[in-house]
């Protein structure tokens, strides 16, 4: 029992944790509620990943294959953990497929849920077919064609609205989702590559392409791909008589109202806490922080910890996170779990 780690969620973080656990000779049990492994990049059909530029299905596909080929990893797809009992070193989990798992430690790699744009009705998602989300555009890029959903035409002009479901007290999203600026500037370049005549405008409050994303994504999209950045938080998306979309707002740099026609409007949706988090918190006996993400334990000496000993977390379960950092954190959580199990064994022996 003390050589097994139960890992919940098979996205980048969970896959990385499983590989780490198995890699040092421990056993990993990977439980995934969806029928496929890979998490959001696979389920939502992401195109090329930031910052590697690799196609999601190739990059994440390698991570999936690595754990599938590892005899030390047992995988349960389409399965949830329904009950967890015990203490560090001896947990017993009941699964929704009727099986039960004995494990010494648990890693919650339960990730996030994309913000649902219908919660910002003034921005037209669900009302106008040509208002889409970044996830949908990712799928268009994967399919190799940028087209307005309403009639399939190639858009002459695309607007990407940043901070949809982020930094918005009105809807209780008081966090920055961290990745949308970079993802959006990357998408702007991908749109331009597929449709060179399309003009892409990004409507922003701030541009937060942190760290090395600054020149590789923000500057590059502006300087090489001619993306235009307009400082305005859009008030409303409506339809023009000719069927195009009208973006209403204030251009704060010129202190003037704007009503600009667009063919397609893209919501750069933020990262919500996993919609199952209340259930996860109850089943695993961990607390959620005030935004609804998994609450971090004391970080300095209880790295990857939660509020319950023996249960660890990583990646976007803790809050908005990049894929690369989720992978690193998954590895860290796996290592942390093993280290604690090793400590228990040593104490017992």
């Amino acid at each position: 029992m003390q050589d097994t780690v139960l890992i919940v969620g098979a996205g980048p973080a969970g896959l990385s944790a499983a590989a780490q656990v198995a890699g040092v000779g421990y056993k990993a049990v990977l439980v995934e509620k969806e029928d496929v492994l890979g998490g959001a990049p696979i389920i939502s059909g992401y195109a090329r990943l930031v910052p590697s530029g690799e196609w999601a299905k190739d990059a994440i596909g390698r991570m999936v294959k690595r754990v599938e080929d590892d005899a030390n990893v047992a995988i349960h797809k389409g399965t949830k953990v329904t009950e967890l009992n015990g203490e560090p070193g001896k947990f017993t989990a009941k699964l929704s497929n009727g099986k039960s798992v004995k494990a010494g430690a648990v890693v919650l790699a339960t990730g996030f849920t994309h913000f649902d744009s219908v919660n910002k009705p003034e921005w037209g998602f669900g009302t106008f077919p040509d208002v889409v989300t970044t996830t949908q555009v990712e799928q268009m890029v994967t399919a190799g064609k940028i087209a307005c959903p309403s009639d399939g035409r190639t858009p002459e002009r695309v607007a990407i609205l940043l901070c949809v479901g982020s930094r918005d007290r009105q809807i209780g999203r008081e966090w920055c989702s961290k990745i949308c600026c970079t993802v959006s500037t990357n998408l702007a370049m991908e749109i331009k590559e597929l449709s060179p005549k399309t003009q892409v405008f990004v409507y922003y409050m701030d541009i937060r392409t942190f760290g090395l994303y600054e020149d590789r994504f923000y500057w590059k999209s502006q300087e090489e791909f001619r993306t235009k950045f307009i400082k305005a938080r859009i008030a409303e998306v409506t339809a023009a008589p000719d069927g195009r979309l009208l973006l209403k707002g204030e251009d704060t740099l010129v202190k003037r109202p704007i009503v600009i026609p667009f063919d397609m409007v893209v919501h750069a949706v933020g990262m919500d806490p996993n919609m199952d988090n209340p259930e996860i918190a109850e089943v695993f006996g961990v607390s959620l922080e005030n935004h609804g993400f998994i609450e971090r334990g004391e970080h300095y000496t209880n790295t990857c910890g939660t509020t319950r000993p023996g249960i660890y977390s990583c990646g976007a379960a803790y809050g908005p996170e990049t894929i690369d950092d989720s992978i690193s954190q998954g590895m860290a959580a796996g290592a942390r779990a093993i280290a604690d199990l090793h400590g228990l064994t040593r104490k017992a022996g």
Partner: protein
Amino acid sequence: MAIHEKSLIEPERLLRHDTLVVDGVDVSGHWNTMITPRTITDYDDDFEAVIQRYPGAENVHRCWQCGSCTNSCTMYAQNVQFNPRYWIYAVRTGLKEEIIKDKDIIWQCVSCNKCTSICPKDVRPEGVMKALSHWLEDEGHTPKSPSRVFDEEFTEQIYARGRIEDSLVLLNFFRKTGQPLVPQWLRVFGVRLMQHLPVGLGMRFARNFFFAPRTRSWGRTGEVLKQYVREQKEATHG
């Protein structure tokens, strides 16, 4: 309701009919004053490319509106209407009318290049100011500059004869720019020169050339001087 604070609104946005009757009600004069909205209803996607074809404005698309150019600007310190950041934005979004509105200010750039030195994105705003001045001239929003008139005369002569005649270039340049060959300042300069020429001095030079007068009360001073020099030489060399 009459609009009292008209001074706060650009004159071209104020609409007024001297006589107007609406539904039988006489609303002539200021009673019908309306203000056209400032709403931006579209972008001109091509304007930026037009301006970028002028030397100096090649990097205008790099601007991210930090305002460093305006903050460092020599002219902005004199006149807050002189705002390079704003004009760069107008170029990027195609707000041509905003550029035209400021046609009498943009050329005032003194090319101190503080903006170009400080710009974190290497936009080179000073070059953009020059480009805008040239564009305004090309489009006829501002009159031809003297340097352009000169260039045209110069070029025309080359086209016609393969060479220029300096005096003809200058003559035609002065004529085309409406400048007299002898401008007012040159005339004043000549008159003052004549007025203050030392004519008497010249005449004295001439008289002395012919008559070689002696210095007043020179007497025997010359002989005494000669004697002294001789004695000194003997005392020194023996």
